[in-house]
């Protein structure tokens, strides 16, 4: 199977500061990849390049044409209703139907005529997710989309994203700070540090994943130490 994303020797610097120093990244169709790394390690920079929002140098930069992004903030157009936000920039006769369907998928059909500024944080982020999915992306880019949500809402969003991934089948690149979030969702976890991937871990555990699973606990400890955090010993 050919890779959906195939990137070789990707670099990006801001002035004299090299943020990405020759990264290789392959993502298979439908694969769920999580990207961890300390703050400032360049995760957003990499994701923005995949989204086409930033330019760098690469020997090879093969990307699917249909890519969608969800940022940490919902970035909905406040002057458009939820439904109009979801359909913004999408052509075709069946757009409205599909948008309704997608809003249904994220559990937001009852708020489709609402103004974005009246939504709760979780609702706004679900609207942003619907807006990304209605474009039928082959690659879904998520830059810490749950970081500003409360812990309970975040857990609900995890299962929502997981279900949507199963249903719509895009490849996903999820940037996160939350090691457990990465473990609970991803097939493969990459750690970015000092301009390249310092670790790559596969998570060969079937879903639903329980936190008590010893295999997952071992991966978690491994990743935490890679990120420079020693697990608490009580």
């Amino acid at each position, binding site marked *: 199977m050919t890779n959906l994303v195939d990137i070789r020797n990707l670099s990006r610097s801001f002035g004299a500061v090299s943020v990405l120093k020759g990264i290789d990244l392959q993502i298979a169709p439908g694969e769920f990849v999580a990207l961890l790394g300390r703050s400032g390690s360049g995760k957003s920079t990499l994701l923005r390049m995949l989204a086409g929002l930033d330019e760098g140098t690469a020997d090879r930069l093969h990307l699917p044409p249909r890519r969608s992004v969800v940022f940490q903030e919902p970035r909905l*157009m406040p002057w458009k209703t939820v439904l109009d936000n979801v359909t913004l920039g999408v052509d075709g006769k069946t757009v409205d139907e599909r948008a309704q369907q997608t809003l249904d998928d994220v559990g937001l059909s009852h708020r489709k005529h609402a103004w*974005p500024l*009246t939504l709760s944080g979780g609702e706004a982020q679900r609207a942003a997710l619907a807006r990304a999915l209605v474009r039928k992306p082959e690659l879904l880019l998520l830059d810490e989309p749950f970081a500003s949500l409360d812990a309970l809402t975040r857990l609900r969003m995890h299962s929502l994203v997981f279900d949507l991934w199963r249903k719509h089948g895009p490849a996903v690149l999820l940037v996160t700070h939350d090691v457990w979030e990465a473990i609970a969702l991803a097939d493969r976890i990459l750690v970015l540090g000092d301009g390249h991937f310092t670790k790559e871990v596969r998570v060969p555990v079937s879903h639903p994943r329980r936190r008590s699973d010893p295999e997952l606990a071992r991966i978690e400890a491994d990743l935490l130490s890679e990120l420079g955090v020693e697990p608490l010993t009580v």
Partner: protein
Amino acid sequence: MSDMPLPLTGADRPINEAVRPSSGRRFLGLGRRLISPLLLLVLWQVLSATGILPARILAGPTDIIAAAQRLIASGELITGLMVSFLRVLAGFSIALVAGVVLALVAGVSRIGDLLIDPPIQMLKAMPFLGLLPLFILWFGIGETPKIGLVAFGAVFPIYLTLLGGIRGVDKKLVEAGRTLGLSNLGIIRHIFIPGALPSLLVGIRYGLSVAWLSLVVGEQINASSGIGQIITYARDFLQTDVIVVCLMVYALMGLVTDGLVRLVEAHALRWRPQVLA
């Protein structure tokens, strides 16, 4: 020396206003604030009726009301009003189109900004009402200088506020728009214009007040029609009552057009929490 405390009481009045609590109290406060204007009106009427204030300086309130009724009954006022209103409409439409186009170009393109903004900033510094003699030399004394003056005066507030609004549009939304596959035109249409609309509406309201002001000045020159003509005629015959009626009509039209824009505003900005609440 004895009037020393007066400036002080004047100075703390705004503070009292700011902390004024309930709407019931505010209503009472408004009633109180009407007392002195009403007293002045009575005083004015008394001075006029006793002949201390001659009508050739300023007609009394009852004379003014009578003049208004006369002007309305003869149809003169309505006709003049229509002519003046059309001048503002024409001049303001030109200003709106020009201001919006210029601000859009300057707002979304670096070269546009470089070419357009500096000359406008310089022209802005000019006291535009002083351009009237030039406008008369260029355009004669017909409709063109009047409409031109209205357009010239109103274009700056529209341009400046819209440009400020465009610059204030959240760049993160523009980025989101790109990831949604919007073209440059789509980004202008779906993000910059609606995002800058609140500022544009402020500019339109300000521009309209400048437009009416420009019209008042522009209509002083050889107006053969419109409110300006009624004023010129009244001046020649010392009819101060008619002049006051015309001034009130100008003020009223300014209020009406401002109210219309407020209506548009309430509808167009209903997505804003302030409007929703």
